[in-house]
């Protein structure tokens, strides 16, 4: 996961924003408590999304306590005092995914970047082992998904749908791991699948230019047979890619209607209905701008 799943602040109510910040800060604190101060740097919006989706239907109002942020002592934050389990799970998830990403980078990149990734990997190993011991199920899901992804990449899979499936299924499995069978689980699974798929496709879209230059694996380049920078900016390619992204984000937004919940649900609505779209527009503009030059 790559930090694409964000709120769209202009459309957020103040109390929703405060709640979002509190979730974010509490996750940061939990990371620090469980995996050491440095692991707080791994904090991501994606793990925050995981907590929101997971606790969406939880009963009762969350309880908060004021505290100071260790990175910025002048700032007073709200920390949630109940419901620590989902934060612990999210912290473990953050560490596990960061470790896999570092390993992935170590395998794929060259030179200085490879060294940096190897260092990160070595650094994360102890935390990873701790997280994997606490949440063996998470580690299994993540490892299985990485393996499937590598097979697809090695086979130069030319279908974006298939290439996105391991990440999407992994997120769906991670988000529903603790849930009992039933409607709520099925709805959450569908939303998580769509978000996972969107993140993967978004990352591929964002990297098209870079992968074209370096010869890295990119499902969109293969699916549309893109071999040159001009072809990359042609309307049919851009529209095809955007269509995949829009279909995915709209499906996530439509499905959210079936999920019940309180304040957290409104934040999710903001993320799925506006946040994803804003991010897509941002990357789309990136391609249009360079085109104009």
């Amino acid at each position, binding site marked *: 996961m790559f930090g694409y799943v964000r709120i769209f602040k202009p459309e957020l109510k103040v109390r929703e924003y405060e709640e979002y910040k509190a979730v974010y800060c509490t996750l940061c604190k939990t990371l620090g408590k469980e995996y050491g101060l440095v692991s707080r740097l791994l904090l991501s919006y994606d793990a925050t999304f995981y907590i929101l989706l997971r606790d969406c239907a939880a009963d009762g109002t969350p309880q908060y306590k004021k505290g100071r942020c260790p990175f910025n002592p002048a700032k007073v934050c709200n920390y949630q005092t109940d419901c620590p389990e989902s934060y612990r799970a999210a912290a473990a998830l953050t560490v596990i995914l960061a470790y896999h990403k570092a390993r992935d980078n170590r395998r794929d990149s060259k030179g200085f970047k490879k060294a940096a990734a190897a260092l990160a990997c070595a650094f994360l190993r102890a935390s990873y082992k701790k997280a994997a011991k606490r949440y063996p199920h998470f580690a299994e899901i993540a490892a299985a998904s990485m393996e499937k992804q590598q097979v697809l990449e090695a086979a130069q899979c030319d279908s974006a749908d298939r290439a996105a499936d391991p990440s999407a299924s992994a997120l769906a499995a991670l988000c529903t791991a603790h849930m009992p069978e039933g409607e709520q689980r099925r709805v959450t699974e569908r939303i998580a*699948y769509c978000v996972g798929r969107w993140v993967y496709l978004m990352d591929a879209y964002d990297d098209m230019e870079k992968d074209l230059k370096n010869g890295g694996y990119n499902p969109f380049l293969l699916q549309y047979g893109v071999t040159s920078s001009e072809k990359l900016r042609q309307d049919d390619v851009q529209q095809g890619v955007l269509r995949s992204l829009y*279909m995915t984000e709209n499906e996530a937004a439509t499905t959210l209607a079936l999920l019940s919940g309180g304040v957290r649900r409104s934040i999710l609505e903001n993320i799925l209905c506006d946040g994803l779209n804003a991010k*897509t527009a941002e990357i789309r503009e990136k391609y249009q701008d360079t085109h104009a030059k």
Partner: protein
Amino acid sequence: MADPYAVLGIPRNATDEQLKDAYRALARKYQEDSLASGPLADVARRKMEELDRAYDAIVAERRGQTAYTSDQSSYTNAGNGGYNAYGGSAYSGSQFADVRAQINSGRIDDAEMILDGIPIGSRTAEWYFLKGQIQQRRGWFDEAYKNYSAACQRDPGNTEYAAAFNSLNNNSRGGYRQTRGGGCDACDICSSLLCADCCCECMGGDLIPGC
């Protein structure tokens, strides 16, 4: 039964107008085409029934009848007609009745195995449509899109295929929430100023000297 006001997401003192608006907004969401053809069609249908019941209960209560007891829903939504299009047993003439039954009961892997067993030469429009349905349920929207459009090309007159294609196609545009109040950019400000200036000049005054 759950509190009908909570189902509709409105306070107890909401006006009849607010009640209707809330009902319509939710009904529109639950009856979204892409939900009806996705794997959660049954959940959407149940939500819709729950909403109908809640609406009925509130209306009955406000009319002074006994509250919350009307279990038989008398209110039938006009938009409900096409809602069960996929769920009915209307495909007696179908070549793939068994595949359709499997897709509807959620056994998409089995359904796909049967479809894949059919040689490429004898794949009909219906084959592409069903393949698309399987992929849409799985969340593979790109391939679903391709297969739906192949089905429509082979059989342009078929309304079932066209509806599936259109529902996916409607989803392929950006911005789930389209109704957003327009902002005010530099151009708007300048043109408004110019208009105001013209108006002032009509009356003999001047807002922007020299213009």
